[in-house]
Each structure stands twice: as structure tokens, then as C-alpha cells.
């Protein structure tokens, strides 16, 4: 009996199960999802002089409000319109959510704790996250709604505009570090300095592109409620809607982890009292990602939303050239001219 428990514990704590399932995978993705939406609402409420979520666990300021919301979504009837294309309509949100969080498997949480180590883990993470918006297009098409269709098409325009500069910016960092292995990137940042100091331009560009690709304000164009109701998700209800709503936050979480590794020194430095523990580096990385997410969701209280043609012009005319320039900044930093 003990042996079985021990075997189970070993299995659960082994990186190739723990990483996709617990941290930084599914369970922590859900926890972050619940926390970050609450945080977003709470920050907006603070700025807007109101309380925000309050009554579910009042002692902690309604922090489990989203658990209540999730339960509601779970028990609400998911209505499938008669005219909708059933298979994409049902599987779209599931695949959207899955492909959003799937790339966490390639994210290492310390020097020796990762599901798998690859020479190109940076590309794996970016590649899988880029897959997710394609399902938005399918959802928009499959739900047979004009607002859904427009929302899906908007997503189509926006992914091409934001993913290319994003790849180029990430490539700039890869050139700088001389590797696409995320673990090695952290090692190099310990030797040199944080990536944000080595290549600030790439960091800023990447940050804006994160807002762009996770449809945060001011680029909340796909779901613009005053224009196209809820974009591709107009026809959704119940847990299927919950998945579509959660997907962009999970993507935000993944990209924030990536941002922390690329620019903020990953899990280094581990503070004294946490060093030696297996969780320490993971917690540091998590804290950094949370700070990035905080900044991202704070934009809701500051900006209205851009029009799609403005956003596309910004992406192609400003962010794309900036990402190219950041490649040269990386070269400059490599030759030592920068520092």
C-alpha cells in the first residue's frame, strides 16, 4: 500500500507529470486565471472608485468570486444554436483553451525541473501559442453569427500582425543569448544582466505585442462589446463561454512566464530562504510573471480600445520595424558597443 502511494507521489512529482499538470501547467493556469481576473476587476474598481468583487469571501475582498462564476458557468446550460456548425462550435473553445495552455509544457521552472529540455524550447512555446487564435477564427465561422464572423476575421488580421513581430523580437533575444533553449537563456542572464537591460527595445516591443496578442486593452478589438457584442464568442454560453473567456488569460499567463524568462532573469535570483528548495525558483518565476500580468491587466483602467485599422497600422508600421531594430540592438549588445 505504502509502495503504491510512494509510487504515485513519485509519478506526480516527476517533472514530466508535474509540469503539464500542476505547475506551470493546468492547475496553476486555472488558479492564475481565477486570481488574475479577480485582480483585474479589483484594480479597475480601485481606479474607478468602487468596490469590485466583494461578497464572496468578504474577509479577503472577494478573492474567490471567480470560483463562484466558474461554478455558475459549469451549471449553466450551454446553448448550441440550431444553425451553428456543431463540431467546430463545441470543439473550438476546448481546443482554443487547450492550445493556449499547452505551451506551458515547454517552460522550465528551474535549471533541473522541466518536462523536457529542447534546443528550441523558445520556438516551441511561441509556436503553440500562435496556434490558439486560429481556433478563434474557426469559432467565429462555426457559430454562424455575423458578429462572430467579423470577430473571427478581426482575429485573423490581428494574429498575422502581432505574431510576426513577436517572433522577430523573441529572435532578437535568441541572437543575443546565442541559444533558443530557455534554461540556457536564464544561465546567460545570470552571467551578464537581465534581458530587459541588455535589450530594452525588445522588452518594450514584446510587452506591447503581448497586450496585442492576448487582446488586452487598448487592443481589445476582437471582443469589442460596443461594436460586435462579444466577437467570435457571441453565441456561447455556459462552460463553453467560460473556456473562450479563460483562453486569452491563460495565453497571457504563458506569455508572462515567457517574458519573465526572456527579459527578467527567469527564476534568478532565488532569495536566501528559498534556495535549495525545489519550489523556490518556481515561486520566483511565478512572482515575476504575476507582476507582468498585473501591468497588462492594469491597461484596462487606462485605455479605451483602438480601431482595428489603427491597431494594424501600429503593428505593421511601428512594432514590426521596432522588432527589426531590436535585432540590431541585440547585435550591438553582443559586440559590446551597447554596454
Amino acid at each position, binding site marked *: 500500500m505504502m509502495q503504491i502511494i510512494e509510487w504515485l507521489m513519485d509519478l506526480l512529482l516527476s517533472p514530466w507529470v508535474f509540469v503539464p499538470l500542476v505547475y506551470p501547467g493546468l492547475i496553476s493556469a486555472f488558479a492564475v486565471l481565477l486570481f488574475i481576473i479577480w485582480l483585474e476587476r479589483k484594480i*479597475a474598481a480601485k*481606479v*474607478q*472608485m*468602487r468596490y469590485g468583487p466583494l461578497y464572496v469571501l468578504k474577509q479577503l475582498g472577494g478573492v474567490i468570486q471567480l470560483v463562484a462564476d466558474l461554478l455558475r458557468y459549469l451549471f449553466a446550460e450551454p446553448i448550441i444554436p440550431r444553425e451553428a456548425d456543431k463540431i467546430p462550435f463545441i470543439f473550438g473553445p476546448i481546443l482554443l483553451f487547450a492550445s493556449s495552455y499547452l505551451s506551458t509544457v515547454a517552460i522550465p521552472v528551474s535549471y533541473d525541473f522541466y518536462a523536457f529540455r529542447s534546443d528550441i524550447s523558445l520556438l516551441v512555446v511561441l509556436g503553440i501559442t500562435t496556434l490558439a487564435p486560429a481556433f478563434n477564427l474557426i469559432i467565429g465561422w462555426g457559430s454562424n453569427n*455575423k*458578429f462572430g*464572423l*467579423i470577430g473571427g476575421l478581426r482575429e485573423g488580421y490581428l494574429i498575422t500582425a502581432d505574431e510576426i513581430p513577436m517572433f522577430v523580437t523573441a529572435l532578437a533575444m535568441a541572437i543575443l543569448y546565442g541559444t533558443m533553449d530557455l534554461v540556457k537563456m536564464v544561465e546567460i542572464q545570470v552571467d551578464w544582466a537581465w534581458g530587459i537591460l541588455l535589450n530594452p527595445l525588445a522588452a518594450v516591443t514584446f510587452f506591447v505585442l503581448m497586450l496585442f496578442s492576448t487582446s488586452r*486593452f*487598448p487592443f*481589445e*478589438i476582437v471582443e*469589442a*462589446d*460596443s*461594436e*460586435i*457584442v462579444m466577437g467570435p464568442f457571441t453565441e456561447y454560453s455556459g462552460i463553453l463561454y467560460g473556456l473562450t473567456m479563460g483562453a486569452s488569460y491563460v495565453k497571457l499567463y504563458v506569455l508572462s512566464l515567457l517574458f519573465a524568462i526572456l527579459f527578467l532573469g527567469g527564476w534568478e535570483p532565488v532569495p536566501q530562504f528559498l534556495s535549495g528548495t525545489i519550489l523556490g525558483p518556481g515561486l520566483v518565476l511565478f512572482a515575476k510573471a504575476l507582476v507582468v500580468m498585473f501591468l497588462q491587466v492594469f491597461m*484596462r*483602467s*487606462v*485605455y*479605451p*480600445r*483602438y*480601431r*482595428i*485599422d*489603427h491597431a494594424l497600422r501600429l503593428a505593421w508600421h511601428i512594432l514590426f520595424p521596432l522588432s527589426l531594430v531590436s535585432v540590431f540592438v541585440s547585435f550591438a549588445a553582443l559586440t559590446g558597443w551597447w554596454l
Partner: protein
Amino acid sequence: MSSREEHILELLIGPQHPASGHMRLVAEVDGDVVVSLKPDIGYVHRTVEKLAETKNYIQIVPLVERPPLADTANHNLGYVLAVERLLGIEAPPRAQWLRTLLAEMNRIHSHLYGLGIHGIMLGSSTAFMWTFGDREIMIEMAQRLTGARLTYSYMIPGGVRRDLPPGFAEEMEKALRYLERRLPDYDKIFFSNPVTRARLEGVGVLKKEDAIRLGIVGPNLRASGVPYDIRKVEPYCAYPELDFQVVTREEGDSMARLLVRVGEIKESINMIRQILKKLPDGPILEERYLKMIPPKWKDWMAEKGRIKIPAALVSLKPPKGEAVARVEAARGEVVFYVVSDGSPKPYRLRMVTPSIRNVVLFEHLIRNCRVADIPAIYGSIDYFPPEADR
């Protein structure tokens, strides 16, 4: 299928839509460009004009202020002025000034309301929450003056219902100072926000001659560079004695319409200060009706600062004839035309609201704009469906 039909997607925005209001916008879009947009109004028609024919004159006061939410006092004022012209009376000076006071408070309230709606239509929830929160100040002050938050029914033919409560001027000064402190905050978060400017500048440009040709009224007209304001053109109540500017802008785009409203809030703040400083003493009800009040009620009135409405006012019987009054409401010029046949009920009441005159702007401005410009322009013209439908 012709090639046009292949390109055009008909989009029905509303009436069940987050930003359509109580109406349906029938948009035809070609890609992201709106080819045409037709507002389908009438969803909240409540037969104000017909109902008025079945009610006593004083009962119509609450009726006419129901449709234009947030801008109730100005519509009330317009109706009351028309009835007074029909009766051939004029309210005493103090009542006139109190009417002007509430009208200007209501203008601030209504503009804040409009700015908030515009904010949420552009996606700025902060602008929405701030303006909607701060509009509460004007509601609270109006409540102290009139006893009601939104539909005051404060002005009655011949005067006003209540006198200024004690300590009102000091409280109002605090409220105005708070508002003046807040306006720069709005400016930072919303008016000068680069995203807002990108969304509004050069969007939905209304040329001066088009504005005149289409019969546009109010801030939308003044944003196109036409300094037309009933308060100046045909002054009523205390406006001739007040020092204020007609806020105009030359650009005529959505941003200009927004900024004209902001300028009018500032002017209204100035006007309220002047009114509270210069408010004349005297009765608040016309002499003819004041005489009808029994002496013991007169003591009560002096003590409470309120009017006991005499029976003659309840069943007003204006002489046969007709009268027109127009006032500058927050959204533009509102016209009341009352016809009396000598009975206690009007033969006909005509109410021309600013929103019904501004709704034509949709079709005119949105042509060849983007889908995302629909809410941007909608918010900028401060169109309010119930006011248009009456």
C-alpha cells in the same frame, strides 16, 4: 447575385446589443467599411403627445420630463414657459433664477451622463465610472433643492415648487469646486488619452453648411462652428443677466462634439456661481396664484420654503389660443407648442426634442466610416432614443 450583394453584409445592430440603445441600427458593411446605416427608431415611443391631450396642464409637467432622462429640468422648463405664455403670466424673478439654476445643474448632469456613455462605447470603463459617479453630485444637489433625484417636476406654471434650502449655496460651492478638480482628471484619462484622440479626431466630420442644412441643434451644431444657442438668441429666464460664452469649435468631428460638452460644463459651473451670488429675493409663485392661498398655508409656506399648490393651478383653464416656447436643453433646442381650446386639457401638445433632430446625423456621418466608428459617432452625438421617440 449581383456583385454588390456579394460584398455587402447586412448587420442588424440592436435593439438587443450592448451599445445600440433602444433602437435598431441597420448597417450595411463592406468589409470593415460601413456603406450605409439606417437608424430604426420608435422602440420606446410612449405617446407623450397623445397622453397630454387627456391630462390637466399641471399633470403634463411630469409627463414631458419622463422621456429625456438626465435632462428633465430643461424639458420641464420649456413646457412651463409655453403654458405661461398661453396664460399670459410670467413667473416672479426669484422663480426665474431658481429655474435657471436647476436647468444649468441639469445640463452638467446630462453632459456627464453623455460623456460616460461615450466613454463606455469607446471601451474606457474608467471614464464611464468616473462621470457616472460624479453625476451623483448634481443629483444630490438637485435632490436638496427639489426633493427628487431625476424627475424633479420642480417648475410649475407661475413659479417653482420650492425655495432654496438653507445652506444650499455653500454646499453647491463645494460641489462645484469638486467638479472643477475632477475635470482635469477626465482630461488625463479620457479626452487627452492618445487612444481616444485616435478614435475621435477626424471621425464623423460634420461640415458647417451640412449642420445648418440638416437642422442639427445643440452642442452638435456648435461643434461645427455655428454659435447658435437659444439662451443667447432668444433669452429666457435669467439668462439675459448672466455672463456666459457660447462654446463653439470649428472642427466638427466627434472630438469637437465631446469638447464642446466639456466646455459647456465649465460654463454651467460659472453660471451656477453667478446665479447663487445674484439670486434676487421675493416670492417664488406668481402673484395671481399666491393670492389664492389661505393665510394659514402662507405661514406653512414661509416656514417650509415650499408652495402649497392652489386649486386653480391644478385645473388650469388657459384661454383659447396657442403658444410656442423653446429652450436650450442639454442635447439641444427643445420646442413646445401648446394649443388650448379653453378646456382644462390641452387640445394639442407638440414636443420637438433635440434627439429627433440629431438622429439624422447617423445616416449622414457614418457613411464610409469603419464598423468601430459606429459607437464612437453614436456616443459623440449624445443621441438618446427615448427622448427622440417621446
